[in-house]
């Protein structure tokens, strides 16, 4: 645990030292703030004291920003060779992976925490549903966990950050919209399976305030699968390189 935390701390300070963290937070708050408060179907259009517009916008901004955070985590180490230095220290592959993963989640949590003024503002306007707000944030954290898992995996298979970024977006796109679109035109079991695989379906039900174990298991399994594949991909150095 101590070693995981050491790695997490290094990754976090590297996020902040390289300005990635600040850029990510500013862009995230800028985008989601702009579309929540100023433009499009913003909060004032709905006529309700609800944060749902913010959640559905953050759902999209996180989809783009998380791969940008995770792309360098392992790809850069592969490129510069520091992965060899890191893995010959007395740590396991798993500790390295979890340490990096945690750093990403903490940074996202910080970005999300900075949107609390939105909650305060809306609660001053009208009667806000505290449970729904909690569930909304929980849903955002859970999709972040899932996308960070995918992002970490694509970062581990290459030494090129752009490749890592684009493949994370590519894989993410299926969960984000493609499964849902296809399933809409299909009937029967296949349609149902695709519908279950769609992230949007689970996100919508959770952010509406319905906590279902099924949804949580869904997000957790994507995250877990991502981390598991990352470990497999790191272990591949034993077979080929």
């Amino acid at each position, binding site marked *: 645990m*101590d*070693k995981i935390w*050491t*790695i997490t701390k*290094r990754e976090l*300070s*590297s996020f902040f*030292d*390289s300005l990635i963290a600040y850029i990510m937070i500013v862009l995230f708050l800028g985008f989601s703030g702009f579309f929540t408060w100023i433009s499009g179907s913003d909060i004032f259009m709905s006529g309700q004291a609800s944060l749902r517009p913010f959640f559905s916008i953050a759902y999209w901004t996180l989809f783009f920003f998380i791969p940008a955070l995770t792309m360098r985590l392992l790809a850069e180490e592969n490129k*510069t*060779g*520091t*992965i*060899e*230095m*890191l*893995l*010959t*220290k*007395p*740590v*396991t592959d798993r500790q390295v992976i979890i340490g990096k993963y945690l750093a990403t989640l903490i940074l996202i949590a910080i970005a999300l925490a900075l949107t609390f003024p939105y909650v305060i503002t809306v609660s001053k306007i009208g009667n806000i549903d505290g449970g729904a707000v909690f569930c909304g944030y929980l849903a955002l954290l859970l999709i972040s966990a899932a996308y960070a898992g995918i992002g970490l995996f694509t970062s581990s298979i290459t030494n090129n950050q752009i490749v890592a970024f684009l493949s994370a977006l590519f894989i993410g796109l299926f969960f984000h919209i493609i499964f849902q679109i296809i399933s809409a035109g299909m009937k029967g079991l296949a349609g149902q399976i695709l519908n279950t695989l769609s992230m949007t379906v689970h996100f919508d039900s959770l952010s509406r305030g319905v906590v279902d174990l099924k949804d949580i298991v869904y997000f957790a399994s994507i995250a877990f699968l991502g981390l598991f594949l990352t470990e497999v991909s790191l272990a591949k*150095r*034993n077979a*080929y*390189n």
Partner: protein
Amino acid sequence: MDIVVENLTKKYGNQKAVDNISMKVATGEIVGFLGPNGAGKTTTMKIITCYIAADEGDVFIGGKSVRDNPVELKKYIGYLPENNPLYYEMPVIDYLEFCARLHGIEKSRVPNRVVDMIRITGLNSEKHKKIGELSKGFRQRVGLAQAMIHDPKILILDEPTSGLDPNQIVEIRKLIRDLGREKTVILSTHILPEVEATCDRIFIINKGRLVADGTAETLRKKAQGTDIVRVRIEDGNTDEIYKSLKNLKSVSMVEFADRNLNRFDVHCKSEEVKREIFSLCVGNNWVLTEMTPFETKLEDVFRELTMN
């Protein structure tokens, strides 16, 4: 701690990078690893440091297999990988603290260890800079500091002096020798005088196979067969000198090194030869102006063993 490598084999695709290598390194020994590029030095080191796993065979460190106890054994090893990869965006101090923590050094002892290593490796003036801002020589020192921060019993250094200027090479070599006392050290290099200067024993590998194992002296002797003395004798008839040298008891063969200057390479059977040559010259009133034991250079040994 000793290192025992047993029948190590590692394939990359169809190519055998390491082919059935076995060797033993005793506790406290400094061992040089020689070989042309692509001979398998780095791969062997990567296996010893538990970075990659061997296809066949095993490495035992202090009697424990690297296959079964990688995390435990990695605590005893300090490793400087080839090309010295470092986090360029980190300041020197932060980086060393990070490494110390990963090695499980207690939090309260970390600052002391870091200060010690900075002092020993002479990084004091650079300690607040980011690693990316340092010159190559200083980066190499950071790499060494990182490898030795936990005072490991075993040091594995993959080309520690590559790309440095001659002054830096001398400094780093001295550092290795000072810090490597009481440690088991394996270092790989292309610079042959370096091995002679720092190592107790030499392993030469070629195409994944171990082709020689011994001290610099024994390797040289083996390559050369007999001792050779180069002499220059003046004030005499060349052919006459040649004949008399040949007739000496302890001489097995005489070659002309330079006929015009009366220089000869005398292959000899025993140490007596120098005295005999001297008496011969005195007896004939010849003047002996040169007599040097002729050594095969390690370069020649290396070339002979690794060229096909």
